[in-house]
């Protein structure tokens, strides 16, 4: 995983981060990327429509 915060943020925002924020964000991204990886362990997710489609169908 890449926790180079700089490369994942828009430049106009990245340059405003303090060092402390950069460090905290990197730690949080490690957790967030684990959450995203966890979602990819759910089987059959590719068979599903988006929620918006589901709601529209029910109306």
């Amino acid at each position, binding site marked *: 995983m890449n926790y180079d915060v700089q490369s994942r*943020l828009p430049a106009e*925002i990245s340059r405003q981060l303090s060092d402390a924020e950069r460090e905290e*964000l990197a730690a949080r991204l490690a957790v*967030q990327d684990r*959450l995203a990886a966890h*979602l990819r362990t759910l089987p059959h997710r590719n068979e599903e429509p988006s929620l918006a489609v589901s*709601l529209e169908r029910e109306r």
Partner: protein
Amino acid sequence: MNALLTLSLMELSAEIRARRVSPLEATEACLHRIGERDGVLNSFITVTADSALAEARQRTEELAAGRWRGPLHGVPLALKDLFLTAGVRTTSGSAVLRDWVPDRDATVVRRLRDAGAILLGKLNMHEHAFGATSENPHFGPVRNAHDPERIAGGSSGGSATAVADGLCFGSLGSDTGGSIRCPASLCGVVGLKPTYGRISRAGVLPLSWSLDHVGPIARTVADAAAMLEAVSGYDSADATAAKERVPPFTSRLDAGVRGLRLALPREHFWRPIQPQVRDAALAAIAGLEQAGAVVEEISLPLLEYAPAAQALIICSEAATYHREQLAANYEQYGADVRMRLLQGLCISARDYLDAQRVRAVVRREFLEALRDYDGFLTPTVPIPAPKMGQQVVEVEGLTAPPLFFLLRNTSPFNLTGLPAATVPCGLADGLPVGLQIAGRPWDEATVLQIAYAVEQWRSARITPA
């Protein structure tokens, strides 16, 4: 406290209709109470005393002329400060919008005005609705009416504590992960998040468009039902507002729960939980069984994926909405909200779409369970209100920041778009506990019917000392 302020919205409404109390008297009583108590609670950002008194005089004159608009006629209410109000500043609890004055009302504000409600002002909240403590760095922290050393919950913290302490007879909040139900539960009042699409969000500042809902906070279930009735329905200005029929939510509240089949999901909601919260929720559930409901444990194994999907969706959508403002006004965002937005900016489109797909799978599992059951029962928040500034909470051996617990039980119903209410059901450490009831899409009527049965079982309102 003025005895008038101990009435529920519906009780006040009956007094007004019978012309035993005037809208002007009720409004003056609320404004006096705000002056007396809001120095402590900090629930209002803006009090619109002059326009409220003018509206109250008009509603009083209408009654004298024989015109009664309905249950909200002359009833003083207040709005979370993210509903656009023409000519009145709308801050979203932020420094960026500190002086922003919209030129139009949100659809729901217009509907409340048309229903005859008096609007007392704009309520304090977690900045941009992106948090659950309402410890606002720009307008000061909202305090819990039951113990001012504790948080009111959030993000609609002002909306809940003002209702609990008699500063208004009801309020509107918004709920993206539990922002109506969490503070309502911690402050001992009723909160309802309806089905996604039931209430227009036109003119409501967004946090996360696929998760945001608008709903009422009130002292009783009947009060919440009356407010829901007034603001629900199709709105061409909101692409997500449904053309679903709006039933009379107040008419079958007392139908009872005999024969209703209610599910207790065994995963997620009951652990970790503070033991007194668990006991209070279980006692209320036993009360529903005594009243004739059939309660059964069920399994929802895909719930395990709900928190991750919710977190990725809310952060992505919020960051997309705020990106330009954050770049232009970086230092004006509070530290906690800014960090969550930065996280959101780092989520890839692929991960966001995966979260939306997982969301559909979780929703399907919930809907399948609701083929056999009329609703779900869970504790609303697994802990009582934490202290202001508290960094971590320890429950059943798990130590985590308050946010981990505050929205844990409510957010699955934002992810699935199902209607969910909280109703006070007891006390833990002397602080209010709520029971959450969720139901089938568009079936707020049954959710409210079950909540009403809990209210009847408990009989006494949970009021601040």
